[in-house]
Structures are given as structure tokens and as C-alpha cells.
């Protein structure tokens, strides 16, 4: 994203900064006074924990002589990482998240894109109602959303289950095969409107003349949407994809809440839940290694996706 992001801001920044400020701007002390209130907490609460987690992930706790020996912490090289990669639960959690992401992210973004494109056409009435309805879930915390949906999944309380039973179906939203998709539905419900609004804002920024010519040539709304609008808002679509990938890898609240009502979610269901479970067992070095691996996977996937798509799209 940095690539795309800096390019975007540079355009904005340069147009605003065209006139240089006189005599090289203020003294260094003043500049520092503006920067420090942000950078001090940024270093303390962002950079230091990252460094600390990396450092910890290279430590191991050993015991001197048998069960009654005293424990001590020492440098262990990549031992913790070797343990992470040999841990079946880790791979199982990665597998679930991968399946979740491969299905949920495209479904959510395609729905968001269709909604944004429809809101940008003259086909609809009640546009602001639809916009607000879709955006409203963003006001709901993930935990609360998961609690609300868990009532709609519950066989005893759910009106949805009642309705489906009326149609002769026997839905089990909390069953072993279904519960992953029930969690995916909560994420989709929460974030579709937010992503839709990012795309819609980008669509609104396209100058109308761009497709006047296409219209005069008799291009259909479909052709204009797919051939002109979608390519122009590609950076927004990439942005929403990257944010969705980051969000998926951090998944915690939704499955943790569903775990309260379904035995089909283990305490190590997602990588983040695994890290928390390991840390709760006081194995902080192993938990740190898991956190570092999650962060590295996040970076590789987000940057990889941005490079791939920006090359393809020739951005």
C-alpha cells in the first residue's frame, strides 16, 4: 500500500506545497515539538512492542536438571519458530483462516462493488436510505455483532431458524461444517458497507465527462461500469482488499463469541486465538513467535497483493 498510498498523497501534497515556505521553515526545535506528541507514543506503543516481540521470539525457557530444577531464560535462535511450524494446531488455524479469507473477502468485496456501482447509476431511488442501511453495521462493535448474530443462529431463539424450519429445512448454523461460515457472515455483515462507501466515494470523484463520450456512442450502463468505472477505482478496490486481508488474519472477536455457544470452535480456532491461548499458558516466547509469524504473513500478503495488482493494472 505504501507504494500506492505515497503516490496518491504525493500528488495531493505537492499541489498544496507548490509554494515553498520562506527561509526553510521553522527551527528544528519547533518541528520536533510538533512531531514528538505523536512519535513518542508511536515509538513506545507501536515500535517498542514490535521489537520486544521479535526479541522474545528468539528466547527459550530451560530448566537445570529435571523436574525440580530452576528455570532460566536463554537465547534459543530459531527454536520457537521451529516449534510454531511443527505445531499442527498452528497449521489448522492458518488453514481455516485461508479458507475463510479466500471465500469471505471476494464475496464481501463483490457485493460492496455491485452496491457502489448501483448507487452510482440513475437506476435506484432511496439512495441515501440504502447507503445508511449498509453503513450502519460499522457502528456496531465486532463483539456485539457476533452476539447479535449468535442469537440469530441459536436453535432456541432464532426467528431465522424458525422461518427455515417452516420451509422444511433443518439449518444448523453452529455445526462443525457451518460455523466457519457463520463467523464469515458476521464479518461480511460488519464490513460490506464500509468497503462499499470507500468504493462509492471513489466513483463520485470520477469526472462525468469521462463517460459522456461512451454514452453518446451508445455504451450500456454495464459496459460503462466494467470498462470505465471499475478500472478507474481499482486503487480503492486494492485498498479495501488489503484492509480485508489484514482484518482476516487478525480474526478474534467473532469466533471467540461464537465459541461461547458452539462446541465446534476450539480455543485455537484462529492464529490469533492460538497466540492468546499460548500466552495464557505463560509461554510468552512461543506466543511472541506466533504473533511475529502472523505479522510477517500479513505484510507479505498485503505487499504481495499490491505489487501483483498494481503491475497488472499498470498503475
Amino acid at each position, binding site marked *: 500500500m505504501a507504494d500506492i498510498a505515497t503516490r496518491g498523497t504525493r500528488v495531493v501534497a505537492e499541489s498544496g*506545497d507548490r509554494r515553498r515556505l520562506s527561509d526553510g521553515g521553522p527551527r528544528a526545535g519547533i518541528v520536533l515539538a510538533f*512531531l514528538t506528541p505523536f512519535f513518542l507514543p508511536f515509538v513506545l506503543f507501536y515500535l517498542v512492542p514490535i521489537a520486544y516481540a521479535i526479541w522474545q521470539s528468539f528466547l527459550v525457557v530451560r530448566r537445570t536438571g529435571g523436574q525440580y530444577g530452576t528455570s532460566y531464560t536463554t537465547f534459543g535462535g530459531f527454536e520457537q519458530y521451529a516449534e510454531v511450524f511443527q505445531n499442527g494446531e498452528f497449521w489448522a488455524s492458518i488453514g481455516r483462516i485461508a479458507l475463510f479469507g479466500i471465500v469471505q473477502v471476494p464475496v464481501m468485496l463483490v457485493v460492496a462493488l455491485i*452496491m457502489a456501482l448501483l448507487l452510482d447509476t440513475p437506476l435506484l431511488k432511496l439512495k441515501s436510505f440504502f447507503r445508511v442501511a449498509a453503513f450502519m453495521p460499522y457502528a*456496531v462493535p*465486532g463483539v456485539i455483532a457476533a452476539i447479535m448474530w449468535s442469537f440469530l443462529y441459536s436453535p432456541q431463539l432464532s426467528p431465522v431458524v424458525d422461518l427455515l424450519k417452516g420451509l422444511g429445512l433443518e439449518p444448523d448454523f453452529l455445526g462443525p461444517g457451518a460455523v466457519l461460515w457463520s463467523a464469515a457472515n458476521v464479518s461480511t455483515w460488519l464490513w460490506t458497507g464500509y468497503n462499499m462507501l470507500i468504493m462509492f466515494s471513489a466513483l463520485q470523484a470520477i469526472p462525468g465527462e469521462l463517460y459522456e463520450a461512451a454514452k453518446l456512442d451508445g455504451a450500456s450502463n454495464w459496459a460503462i461500469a466494467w470498462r470505465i468505472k471499475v478500472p478507474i477505482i481499482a486503487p480503492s478496490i486494492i485498498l479495501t482488499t488489503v484492509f480485508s486481508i489484514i482484518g482476516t488474519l*487478525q480474526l478474534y472477536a467473532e469466533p471467540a463469541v461464537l465459541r461461547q455457544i458452539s462446541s465446534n470452535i476450539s480455543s485455537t480456532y484462529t492464529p490469533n486465538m492460538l497466540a492468546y491461548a499460548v500466552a495464557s499458558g505463560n509461554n510468552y516466547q512461543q506466543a511472541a513467535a506466533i504473533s511475529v509469524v502472523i505479522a510477517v504473513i500479513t505484510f507479505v500478503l498485503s505487499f504481495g497483493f499490491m505489487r501483483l495488482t498494481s503491475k497488472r493494472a499498470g498503475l
Partner: protein
Amino acid sequence: MSNQNPIRESRVSRTAAMALMFLLAIYFLLPIYFLIVAATKPQGDLASTFGLAFSHFDLFQNLSTLFGRSDGIYGRWALNSVIYAVLGAAVGTLISALCGYALAKFRFRGREFLFSVILGGVLVPTTALALPLFLLFSATGIVNTYLAVFLPSIVSPFGVYLARIFTSAAVPDELIEAARLDGAGEFRTFFSVAFKLLTPSLVTIFLFQFVGIWNNFFLPMVMLQEESLFPITLGLYGWNGQTARVSLLQESVITGSLVSIVPVIILFILLQRFWRSGLAAGSLK
């Protein structure tokens, strides 16, 4: 805007588009509607009556049960959420604005480097920070205090990013020059000249950070053991875990969820235009 000259669309595609949007709107609103209905029912009716239809109207009874439970702990959680989110977002917006303003308007060595570091910070999965932060905070003894949740919450790299973009767009260099010629110091210039021009943008940054903190769950869960320090999310999560044993808690979880989302939804609808400018800036990327 661009679509004002009407193209002849078949009635079919209009109807199909409206039908699709209505279905999606039902999907987005259904859980909230269910919550409203459920919050008005007595506990006994939750399982025995149809979930989308009102039965006995017991909302006020439910509210008084909710706020009376465990010596009014719910009110405490609500207050905590407000403290974390309002104070955290206010401080966070101010420091983001100062930093973003400096990055936009001052020329100094290392500026682009610092900005790249901040953009990298946007990509950091914040849940990965929570566990190491817990260990660092335990060492300094601020675990299980307000500060343990408040301090990390004030840092918003995305806020700095927005502040830089907004400053470049909204504050002309000529005004800063003029203030300097009048002999105003840089802080004076920022607070008396730039601040006014930036106010709508600052509201946007505030809102994004407010919602981020209000919705946060993982950080307070890792940091806090003392129930009286919990935000609403963590408190309701705890109650929800006990409903299997204490089934009467279910109604309070439902009513408590509704009470916690109503003010934020109202804030959303009233301040819509600020969201749109923030999302538009986000899409500039």
C-alpha cells in the same frame, strides 16, 4: 451527477436493482431490528415467541434490570467506554493533527522517511501488539489500569495520514506566511489559523478513532482483569459467556447490546458528511 441525462433503462433492470438493494438492506437491518424486538420482551418470551414479532412490551423493566445488575456495573462499563473512546480519540486527534500538519507544511530532513514509517504502521496488525504490550506494561505496573487501554489507543497512524492529506488540501501556504509575517509563532499559527480551517477534517479523524476505540475488544481483554475498568464490549462478552449457567442474563445481554449501539448509530447518521470525506480521502490512496 454525471448520470442526470436519463438513459432509457428497461423497467426490468430498474426493478431488479431495487429488489437487490432491498434484499441487502433487509440483511443489514435485520439483526438490529431483531435486537430492538428482543430488548422489549420479557426473558420468558425470548424462546417461546417468534423473534421478529413484538410480544409483551417490557423494555423499561429490562432497562432497570440491566442498570441494576451487580450494583450498576453496566453503567460503569458504559462510562468507561465513553472515557476510553472520547478522551482517547480527542488526544489522538490532536497529536495526529500536529504531526500531520508538520509533515505537510514543514520542510525538514527525514520527512518522507518518517511518513513511510507511519504508513507502515497502518499495516501493522494491532492485535499482534497487544501481547508484547501486556508484558511491557506488566513490567511497569500499569497493567489492569485505565492507562493500559488508554495509552495505546491514542496512537493512530491512519489519523496522521488523514491529517497530512487534509492539511495539504485545506491550509494554503499563503495564510501561514501571513501569520508568520505578523509575528505569530508556529503553535500560535497552528491553533489560530490552521485549526479553524481543519475543523471539519479533525471531526472526521476524531470519528474514525472514536469508533476504533469504542469497538476495540482484544486490547482491553488482554490488559484488564478488574471488571470495574471494562469497556462495554468486554463486559457484555463476559456476561454472554455466563448465559449457559445464568439464563436470566440473556435478556440483559440483549438489552445491553442495544443500549450500547444506539448512541453510536445516532452519531453516525447525524455526522454522515464527515464519514464521507474521510472515506474519500482513504480512497485517494
